[in-house]
């Protein structure tokens, strides 16, 4: 639509005596400058609209208006979603509950670094860029300088009116910095992810075999998420999933193969006891380190055992294994039947018995032979000993005679 030029004038009313003049029917506007007399400068959006008007809309303003409105709608639809400012890679805004803001930076080892940076919904899946963005967001919000400037504390008493009570309120900022430090360092982040508090919670309420059996829980619905939970620790990605009831034999075998040979990056340095850096007792330090090391190894071992137990349990409960075994058996029998339906079975039974007897006989014979051989060997040994004694005695006699 064309722009409306709004004039800030108000005309006085028409005099009552005013009579509209008669317009001569031949009146025309003066002939315009003929085409070619004036040459437009080919610049600006107005010129483009002029081109549109003359090339496509046969000089009709209403047609151009329609076109421009349609174009505007199209562009609005095109840019509507991603026009909301800078893209934050899905970091978003998270609520900050009171207890989070009240965190003590001294207890940083215990804090949930993802929650501090507002990445609870991403956790171990957050990538470096997202962490960077989340950190920036938090810093912008919680920087001590900013807090001091925009203090909103309602003074608790009249005497404190106008006194900034927020000056020393950089505790949460320190928590943010610590969280960023941890998550920005791949090694530290790995250690933290290994003992991610949310993961530990989930790990707590893992179902046991007895539970599944007694409560008659669905195998796949119960254990599927558990394996999914653990798959994050695998060095090899992607990790095969538990699958479904109709998974093929290869898939099932592949799954158990993978999980029995699970190569985990999980480690437990995070739970180490602090080595007292201040003390100059080397022994003290070494003792702590040694203890930490053994503790780590123990935890790792436990972790491996736990996972192994989980896989064992799954294997034991897996309805597919029974099915596969059944299928294998059937296949074997079908094969045998196809080769020699009745004889094979009978022959084998007779043969088995015969073989058993033969084996027993052979064992008996062998035993006897062994006994004989042993007795023989005893005799020979005794004889040899006697001979040696004799020889020594003779030699001594000779030596004595020689000396006399």
């Amino acid at each position: 639509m064309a722009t409306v030029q709004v004039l800030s004038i108000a005309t006085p009313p028409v005099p009552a005596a005013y009579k509209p003049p008669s317009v001569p029917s031949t009146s025309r506007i003066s002939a315009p400058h003929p085409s070619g007399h004036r040459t437009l400068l080919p610049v600006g959006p107005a010129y483009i609209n002029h081109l549109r008007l003359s090339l496509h809309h046969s000089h009709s303003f209403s047609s151009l208006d329609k076109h421009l409105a349609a174009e505007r709608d199209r562009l609005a639809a095109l840019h509507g979603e991603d026009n909301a400012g800078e893209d934050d890679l899905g970091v978003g805004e998270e609520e900050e509950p009171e207890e989070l803001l009240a965190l003590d930076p001294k207890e940083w080892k215990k804090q949930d670094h993802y929650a501090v940076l507002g990445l609870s919904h991403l956790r171990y899946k957050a990538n470096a860029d997202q962490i960077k963005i989340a950190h920036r967001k938090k810093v912008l919000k919680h920087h001590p300088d900013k807090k001091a400037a925009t203090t909103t504390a309602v003074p608790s008493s009249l005497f404190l009116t106008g006194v900034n009570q927020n000056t020393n309120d950089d505790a949460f900022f320190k928590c943010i910095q610590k969280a960023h430090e941890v998550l920005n360092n791949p090694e530290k982040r790995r250690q933290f992810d290994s003992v991610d508090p949310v993961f530990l919670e989930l790990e707590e309420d893992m179902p046991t075999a007895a539970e599944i059996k007694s409560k008659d829980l669905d195998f796949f619905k119960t254990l599927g998420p558990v394996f999914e939970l653990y798959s994050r620790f695998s060095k090899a990605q992607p990790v095969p999933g538990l699958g479904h009831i109709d998974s093929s034999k290869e898939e099932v075998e592949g799954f158990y193969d993978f999980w029995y040979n699970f190569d985990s990056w999980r480690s437990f340095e995070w739970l180490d006891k602090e080595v007292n850096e201040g003390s100059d007792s080397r022994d003290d330090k070494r003792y702590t380190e040694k203890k930490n090391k053994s503790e780590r190894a123990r935890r790792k071992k436990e972790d491996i055992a736990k996972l192994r137990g989980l896989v064992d349990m799954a294997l034991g409960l897996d309805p597919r294994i029974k099915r596969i075994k059944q299928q294998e058996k059937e296949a074997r029998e079908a094969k045998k039947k196809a080769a020699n339906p009745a004889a094979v079975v009978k022959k084998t039974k007779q043969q088995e018995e015969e073989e058993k007897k033969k084996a027993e006989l052979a064992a008996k014979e062998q035993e006897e032979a062994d006994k004989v051989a042993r007795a023989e060997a005893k005799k020979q040994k005794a004889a040899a000993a006697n001979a040696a004694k004799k020889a020594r005695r003779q030699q001594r006699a000779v030596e004595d005679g020689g000396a006399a």
Partner: protein
Amino acid sequence: MSKLQNGASSRGASATPAPGTPTPATGPTSLLPPVVGINFGNSYASIAVFTKEGLAESIANEDGERQIACAIAFHGEEMYIGNQAKQQLVKNAKNSIVGFRNLLGKKFSEVPGSEHPTLSAPIIQHPDLADTIAYKVEVLQPAPSPLPTSAYTTPAASHAPTPRSEPIPSTRILTVHDVTVIFLRSLLKSAEDFLGKPITGAVISVPEADTFGEKQREALKAAAKEAGLNVLQLLDEAAAVVALTTTALWSGDGEEQQEGGEPLGKDRTQLVVDLGASALSLHLVSVREGLSYVLASSHTPSVGGDKIDDKLVAFFAADFTKKTKVALKVCPATAVADQRAEAKLRLAIEHTKRTISASPGAATCSVESLKDGLDYTGAVNRMRFDMLASPIYAAVADAIGALLARAAADAHDVDEVVYVGGTGCLPGLDSRLCVQAGFREDVQTPFARGIVVGGGVGDPTTIIARGCAAQAALLDALATSDAQEDKEILAAFEAGAEANQVKATTKTLGVLFPNNLPENREVGGTWIPVVQRETALPVRRIVALDVGVEEGSKRVACEVWEVVEGIRTEKVAPPKSSDDEDDDEDDEEEEEEEVEVKHRTLAKHALLAALDGPAQLAVQTKGKGADRGRWFTRVEIQFVVGIDGDLNVELREIGGAEGLVQRVHVAA
């Protein structure tokens, strides 16, 4: 199964973004078109790109220069481009190339001997190509690298490389095309370095067609293509100026409200004063809601900043002689020492001129070892400078007078003056022109609006480049659009001429609300111009205003007229000084001539239609004030003049659906 594959480990996550996170969408920065606007003058060039703020801004090159000298110099193995090359004019003049733009696309025989450069590398006939202008420069070519040592060819095999031999003196022949390619490439590189991404399109300014013909434009396009620029359009300098002055940023409405200043009207007659180093170009442009055309233009090659330089150099040379008693003859200089001193002074006064333009105080000029080992430091204040430059200012004013006379326009018709070019920065020029050319009191100039200094939008040195950038962004949007219509429009840009020829109105159309107010006696009512003269057809204009109505009849009546606007000149005796204490002063005043005062006049030309009807939505003004108790209604009047000259007028009461609507059609 597929779900689990999403579980990327934390360590791998940084390398491969976890699935499920959205792919980085195009942020606001990537929406900026990677285009560059280039003002390619004969003496100086400037480049402009779109910055993060979404504004076309002139950017500096690697040397920090926004005004990049069009110069290339060769010294030994080195090649200098831009202002560094200009410094070479002092000691290495024969290897420095300046002023090549105007030679682009010309044949050797077309350039008369008088136009050959004297202070820089001489132009010669190309030894191989027929009738081609070339520059011959002395360079040092790096010696060919020695052959690699080989155990088989040398008796004593050594792993130490043989040192390179000294570079070999040689000559290099460069055509104007080669020089332009080198220069444009350096401009492109500056822009790409600034934006950090490749440039996809460029708009380059060129002088108007009668000085820079079709052949020269083709040559420039070829050179730009070879330099790696995708030329979207070659813009006349006047068009580049208009591209910027029709934006909301310039006229000061919309969000970018200028402090204090009134927004400029959408319809205005602009005078573009392009005072470059070597020539003066004047354009009288009619701007009508963004559509614009040149009413008249003139090109005066004899007037330019170089003439001011001459005066200033002569002034400083005389000052030097006065201070040191060392003779220094410049403009023109004959002795070699004088020539060198003149070159040094010319380089130094660039700074002096810029200081004069920027600040009201005195500007200094310092040259080390100007002549005979003597240093020079002098100063010039604005008043002295304006006195020196006065002949040039006068010449510009005369040229403006001649142009207006040719266009059959009066100085009072000019609504806005726009200055372009380095010399246009001088405040003395503006104040002189306003007086001598006889513009209106309320004429809008960049100086009056205070948008020149401090990187304002009115900075004369960057207007063209920024206009080019704005235009490049428009064309880039068309080029990247996939609509068929946009493609055709882009094609129309290339084809050019046909679509640019337009019909335009010759007289102003408007409405007259009859009343008996004494100040409206001339036409018998309140005159509201709607479609100004010199507006390209087809045109649509809408104005909205309050109309007073009688309480009883609620009558709204108006007449559609075509009028002739004119200027009436009246000679008025100057007002007598009230205090007659001093007799001498009185005598002087009596001798003074009568002062010419100009008035705008209106003469009704033809009555086209009359509208009359009762208002339906009139309201009574409440509260206090002069209008208390009166009845008003708000109306919108739309004028549509078709391509053939037929007129449709629609008067519509706004504020409700049941308002008064009256339509009149006047056939062509």
